[in-house]
């Protein structure tokens, strides 16, 4: 169900993604995340094209944390911020974070290799049904994504939507 990937650049850190639908307690989850009770990033799956997009954001967040150059206050807010094509933190949360009425949630956790307790702690908090992470592609709001990342029709000729999105995310700090 979930997807765990070791970060090649930080071999002792892994990123796990878990996707839930029919979530009934989004407001409560969001509140706990804001208060720091949940150590994980809660992301709106409609803005995700593919799990790879999340890995790119997480890798960059861990990198910036390691060198002490994060733009936001925590690793998890940094992941959400990294997904956004702009440098506005509040806008990143509005677009890529979850809202109280949402019924689908992508949970992203960065953990040490064998720290599975941490993951089950989070799963038990979510009142919803876990589905395979790969299904995230069927939940994406393609039109909204294209508009937010400003992806032109001509750009789609030379690569996939995922390519375009990842490129924007990776290069946003020098634009």
């Amino acid at each position, binding site marked *: 169900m979930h997807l765990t990937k070791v970060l090649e650049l930080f071999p002792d850190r892994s990123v796990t993604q878990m996707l839930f639908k029919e979530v009934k307690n989004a407001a409560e989850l969001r509140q706990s995340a804001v208060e720091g009770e949940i150590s994980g990033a809660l992301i709106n799956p409609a803005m995700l094209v593919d799990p790879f997009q999340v890995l790119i954001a997480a890798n960059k967040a861990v*990198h910036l944390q390691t060198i002490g150059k994060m733009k936001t206050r925590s690793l998890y807010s940094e992941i959400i911020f990294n997904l956004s094509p702009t440098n506005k933190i509040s806008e990143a949360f509005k677009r890529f974070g979850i809202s109280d009425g949402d019924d689908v949630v992508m949970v992203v956790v960065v953990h040490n290799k064998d720290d599975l307790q941490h993951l089950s702690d989070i799963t038990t908090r979510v009142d919803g049904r876990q589905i395979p992470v790969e299904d995230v592609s069927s939940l994406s709001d393609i039109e909204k994504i294209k508009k937010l990342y400003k992806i*032109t029709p*001509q750009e789609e000729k030379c690569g*996939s939507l995922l390519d375009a999105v990842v*490129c924007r995310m990776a290069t946003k700090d*020098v634009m």
Partner: protein
Amino acid sequence: MALPDFLSKDKLIKQGAEARVYRAEFLGKPAIVKERFPKRYRHPALDEKLTHRRTTQEVRSILRCRKAGISVPVVYFVDYTSHCIFLEEITGSLTVSDYIASIQQCKEQELLRLAEQVGQILAKMHDEDVIHGDLTTSNMLLRCSTVDIHQTDLVLIDFGLSYISALPEDKGVDLYVLEKAFLSTHPNTEVLFRKLLEGYAASSKKSPAVIKKLDEVRLRGRKRSMVG
């Protein structure tokens, strides 16, 4: 993380004066890592500044090309402390240089078509005011199109010396550098290069000024005369 650990020697595929290029797996995908190593012969402060500027410039040009629909590798991640750019690996590709060398005589028609395609893409790039800076047939890759398997995509690589300029002079020099490299790598291909320029001229409205500059540059060389 110790980046040198990750970029272990066995993955090194090329070493140049400016950077080292490695092949690696990044977040599960085949990737190319371009590392601009420190140059000991420069003052550290200057070295840092130059290297940083070149890294950001390379990334900017790549994005600018992608936005215009020119095939270039996807940027996955940039580390501005170690000056490493993580790029998509163009798998199953062949350099234009190798391609031309492999079929020089028999398939004249295909080569002409390719030359024209190269010209068209360079015109598109120059219309975006991207100057590649190091155009050679080794910095162009051919891969099966991601959209239509019967077509080949031309992918431009190595934007390490690229910059943004609208001047016909800079675009003319860009083409002049390619002409020199093209004709010396592939002897007796004047016809091919002429076809490339035809392709270029036909696809850009700004081409007459550039071609005119190219003619000027041919007479005087790449460096502008500083006399007077």
